[in-house]
């Protein structure tokens, strides 16, 4: 169906930026790639592995995440955590998300601005 395809594209567009926000929130508790993937999926943010792993590296390069190798367990894993800069950025993003929601609600209810 063409309309299914269109819906899928629009949903994808709508969701694109929210993965970054969700990751910054979730990584306030340090975690490694696969575990984060599981948590995001469980909380209704389905994301592809081949999108998330490169994204984590990019956020780290932008200074929004810090990372640390954990070698205590049998398998060495890279743990990411939201940095101070990441926290600041997250607040701005959440404010904007709330603003979008508020604007939409106002638009839906037809309240004059």
């Amino acid at each position, binding site marked *: 169906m063409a309309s299914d395809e269109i819906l899928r594209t629009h949903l994808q567009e709508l969701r694109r930026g929210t993965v970054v926000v969700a990751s910054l929130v979730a990584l306030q508790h340090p975690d490694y790639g*696969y*575990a984060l993937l599981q948590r995001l999926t469980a909380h209704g943010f389905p994301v*592809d592995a*081949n999108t998330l*792993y490169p994204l984590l590296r990019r956020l780290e390069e932008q200074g929004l995440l810090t990372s640390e190798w954990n070698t205590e367990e049998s*398998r060495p894993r*890279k743990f990411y955590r939201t940095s101070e800069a990441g926290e600041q950025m997250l607040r701005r993003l959440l404010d904007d998300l709330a603003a979008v929601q508020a604007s939409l609600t106002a638009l839906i209810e037809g309240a004059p601005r």
Partner: protein
Amino acid sequence: MTTLTDRYLAATLRSVPAARRAEIADELRASIADMVDGRAADGVDAVTAEREVLTELGNPAQLAARYSDRRLQLIGPQYYLAWQRLLILLVSSIPAVVGVLVGAIEATVSDNPGGAIGAGFSAAFNVAVQIAFWVTLVFAVLERVGTPLNLPEWTVDQLPDEPVERDVSRTDTCAAIVFLVLTIAFLPWQQFQRVIGDGDRLPILDPALWASWLPVLIAVLVAGIGLEIAKYRAGRWTWPLVGANAMLNLAFAVPASWLLLTDRLLNPDFVARFAWLRDGGVDLVARISVVVTVGITVWDVVDSAVKARRAAR
């Protein structure tokens, strides 16, 4: 033993910057192992799980591009319009000019008119391919390097003067160009044709003309194609186009009529082959052809002038 995962990692890391390769390798290997374990916990056997995980991660080249933040496109939206415009500008002008020049020069230095036309077309084609390749290569490099083009920003002042109401439709232009191309193609064809005459090669037009008037007529026809394109781009007849059209019409009709009336157009062997042509038919054919040629020429020039006047209002 090399596992699928090893091969997948090797394929992915090949196109990741060397400085980050080792760390990405360690992390990706751990992630793949975690994903395989996750599936094994759901009761999938290890071999199938590994295949499924690697399939899910997808083409290694694509994953590597995501790691290195490379875009998978030859020319992106930043450069596309500039690339397209430059390419159209160059390919629509230079190959035709080069082709005509090469063809004309070849025709003057050799006795092989068919070969000259071939050389012209082949030169034009080669030039077009070269232009397309090099322009695209330069833009692809710009895209990779990320050079700013520093083109002036688009402004409303660049809008066309008026909404173009097309007097000249694409269909008309295409039909006219096809007709011109067929006419050009007819000239070499008639030289080598075996359809008329008993299976022998029997040129219809006098082969001696290849050294004199036929290249001129071909050049006029090629210029006619250029005129059609210019007319289509303008969207309507303008006075300069009317002038050019009148010149081209005269440049074709005058030599053609003169050749017809002085009995130099048709191949004497061709005339000799057919009794009714021999017995005065040639003069009749020539007269009718001249009248038709002059009629079409006058009508075409008047028609273009009328349309230009209407469009100018």
